[in-house]
């Protein structure tokens, strides 16, 4: 596949799968404000997905629509990082997953807002403003809950211990990233890794949480090799289009 299409799909798939996970909180979050917050963030992410899929579909030139890309691709063709497909488990896990993603997403969007590609630049200049709010919120809650009660601290630390190895998949790089950086379309991956490290080290320290000393790195999502959770997400998300192909509202 064309490197640019792969890059757009990776960005769009991250947004879609996290948006889907986030939307699962609708009606289930511990307090009303957080319920609304998760649902609204899911909307932002799914909106961003449409923009990335629009770019991917246009560059691919096979006449596929953003809906085709979301609802008619099998698991192996989804290129999101493993982090975003991890289950909600509890509110602490969901918040930590969101925070770790935002800590990567904001520097990425800030750099993409300077992209040499006009479509990417326009997209990022818009979405960077939304993502700034996402990180504001998740960072605030990580600190409050990490440095909160004994129970909330324990849950946040458990979530961090579980999710940290999956951040390797956000930061993983290959020849697609190298080519995107060479063409000035996307930033040099090391730049984003540096920003991610600075953000997470400072915030997690304020939250009195300890980054686990693990050498475990869980990667593969960006190449379509997913954890067992991914199939369930797609089964639910795609069920209507799989059952009634071409169904429209």
């Amino acid at each position, binding site marked *: 596949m064309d490197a640019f299409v792969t890059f757009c799909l990776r960005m769009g798939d991250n947004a879609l799968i996290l948006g889907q996970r986030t939307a699962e909180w609708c009606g289930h979050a511990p307090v009303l404000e957080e319920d609304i917050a998760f649902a609204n*963030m899911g909307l*932002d992410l799914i909106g961003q997905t449409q923009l990335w899929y629009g770019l991917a579909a246009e560059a691919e030139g096979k006449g596929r629509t953003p809906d085709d890309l979301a609802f008619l691709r099998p698991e192996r063709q989804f290129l999101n990082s493993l982090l975003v497909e991890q289950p909600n488990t509890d509110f602490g896990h969901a918040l930590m997953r969101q925070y770790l993603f935002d800590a990567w997403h904001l520097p990425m969007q800030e750099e993409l807002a300077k992209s040499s590609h006009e479509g990417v630049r326009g*997209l990022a200049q818009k979405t960077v403003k939304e993502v700034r*709010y996402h990180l504001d*919120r998740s960072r605030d809650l990580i600190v409050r809950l990490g440095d909160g009660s004994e129970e909330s601290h324990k849950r946040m630390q458990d979530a961090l211990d579980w999710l940290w190895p999956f951040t390797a998949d956000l930061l993983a790089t290959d020849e697609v990233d190298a080519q995107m950086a060479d063409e000035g379309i996307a930033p040099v991956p090391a730049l984003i890794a540096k920003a991610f490290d600075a953000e997470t080290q400072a915030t997690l320290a304020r939250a009195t949480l300890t980054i686990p000393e693990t050498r475990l790195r869980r990667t593969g999502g960006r190449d379509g090799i997913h954890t067992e959770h991914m199939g369930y997400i797609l089964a639910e998300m795609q069920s209507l289009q799989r059952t009634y192909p071409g169904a429209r509202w």
Partner: protein
Amino acid sequence: MQPDLSTVQDWLAQIPDPEIPAISLVDLGIVRDVGYEDDTLVVTVTPTYSGCPATAIIALDIETELLKRGADKVKVRQQMSPAWTTDWISDEGREKLRAYGIAPPQQGAATCAGMLSAQNAACPQCGSDNTEVISQRGSTPCKAQFRCRDCLEPFDYFKAI
């Protein structure tokens, strides 16, 4: 009929935002251009939030209203760049928001670092600056929930982006 462009602008200024009907699409600052391409009236709009569910309704409302008013062919075009900012909400729009009970966004969104800079959104009920954030998200993605410490009323704040 091919109405002249200033007439079309007047019509657009009467179409309410579907989520916040107190202000019009023109007040909201999302109408970027109106013009003719051959015999088709093309209205260019910029979406507010990427995932705003009102985007599709807005396009439909524009088409329906202009056709109803007598335009022959209408096309609504989405334009991403430059990205919409709350700085484009007109002064009149800000006043209408306040009167409707929504604290208008602070000016200078381009340099606004986010939510925390909006700690002192003035209460649209009593005008007090003594307010606090309840939640960064409100009834729509574009709003946050605040509470006034003086009159104790909760209110929506239209976030600056």
